[in-house]
């Protein structure tokens, strides 16, 4: 039995490929993403409020390090192996070092339907992971010497929609606590999976519209869009093992490492590395990696987490 939300994604891709007369109005897509971001934040905040968080700082630092490290692997692959232009390689590396909130949401729904718990701080780690890859990507494109407007970039990143809503939700959930959020649960928590279904329907349509680009830009990008997440997921699993995460948390960190940004990073790259072609990075991130993670990656990463947990736990 397949998760119905995944089926919505398949419906979207199919409708998109068939060029059906179907699209979610922009305003609805925005509402849906606002709700997802707030809900993920709120849930995290409520969980954090419930229990003392030991060792938050080392975890955040370790995850930050991973965010800096992943594009260091991705860039050379793209630049030398893929012979891409410097700016394009840097931009794509930044996308893959950062994270996709939509993929994370699907992974939590996947865990929930299997009653597998996970560490309360995951939404915080998600938020933290958005940033470092952007910095590395810009440095690859520009070097340290040439003038990037780091101030403007900082605004764009830290005051972008995703970080503001994730952090805002986290703080509200944490301040209100489990009792406090009760009255807003029907909108934010009960509807979560339905909203996620609508989101995936639209993501399917968007994915389909990026497949054409891939057909033109050849197999390298497609291969990268599958292999890089696999590599990332291994890194995420190993790091989660070192940090002593549960199976659920391990699978989520693997998913984060495997996922590629399509909101925060594209926006930042348009501003800081405008000569990079956004069509390429989005085709890889939305056309290949998102569907790969949602359809194949997530169950795989869970299996890997279960196996690795048993190895290191036993």
């Amino acid at each position, binding site marked *: 039995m397949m998760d119905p939300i995944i089926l919505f994604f398949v419906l979207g891709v199919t409708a998109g490929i068939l060029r059906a007369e179907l699209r979610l109005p922009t305003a609805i897509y925005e509402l849906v993403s606002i709700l997802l971001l707030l809900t993920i934040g709120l849930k995290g905040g409520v969980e954090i409020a419930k229990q003392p968080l030991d060792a938050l700082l080392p975890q955040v630092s370790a995850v930050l390090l991973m965010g800096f490290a992943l594009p260091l692997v991705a860039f050379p692959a793209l630049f030398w192996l893929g012979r891409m232009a410097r700016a394009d390689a840097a931009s794509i590396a930044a996308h893959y070092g950062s994270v996709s909130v939509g993929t994370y949401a699907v992974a939590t729904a996947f865990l929930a339907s299997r009653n597998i718990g996970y560490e309360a701080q995951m939404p915080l780690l998600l938020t933290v992971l958005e940033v470092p890859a952007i910095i590395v990507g810009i440095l690859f494109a520009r070097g340290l010497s040439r003038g990037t407007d780091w101030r403007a970039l900082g605004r764009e990143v830290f005051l972008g929609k995703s970080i503001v809503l994730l952090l805002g939700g986290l703080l509200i959930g944490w301040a209100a606590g489990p009792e406090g959020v009760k009255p807003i649960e029907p909108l934010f928590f009960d509807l979560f999976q339905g909203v996620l279904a609508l989101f995936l329907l639209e993501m399917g349509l968007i994915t389909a519209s990026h497949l054409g680009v891939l057909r033109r830009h050849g197999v390298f990008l497609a291969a990268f869009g599958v292999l890089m997440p696999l590599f990332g997921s291994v890194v995420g699993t190993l790091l989660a093992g070192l940090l002593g995460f549960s199976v659920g948390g391990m699978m989520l960190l693997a998913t984060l490492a495997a996922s590629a940004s399509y909101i925060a990073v594209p926006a930042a790259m*348009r501003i800081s590395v405008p*000569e990079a072609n956004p069509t390429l990075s989005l085709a890889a991130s939305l056309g290949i990696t998102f569907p790969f993670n949602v359809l194949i990656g997530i169950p795989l990463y869970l299996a890997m987490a279960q196996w690795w947990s048993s190895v290191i736990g036993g």
Partner: protein
Amino acid sequence: MSVNKTDYRLLTIITEAALESRLIDALEQCGAPGYTIMDVRGKGDRGVRSAGWDQSGNIRVDVVCDEVTANRALAHVRDRFYENYAMIATLSPVEVLRPEKFSPR
């Protein structure tokens, strides 16, 4: 004719929605006395921009101003954005009501 009008220029720029705030800043620095923005979608050299979601929409920015300001703005926009962004820019003549509203800031 009973209505007092004067010759001015309509500068129209169609570009990526992501550029909105920086383009507006640039236009105001060039002396644009005002602007009007519409959310649009379209297709050009850089492919279809379909407004389906955050990054992929276009905006159209109209500025009514005198010829000098229009040319200054056009040159600035060309130098700063034309290379790397999906963008077109056009100029056309317009008559305006209350010309004093459209002198550069």
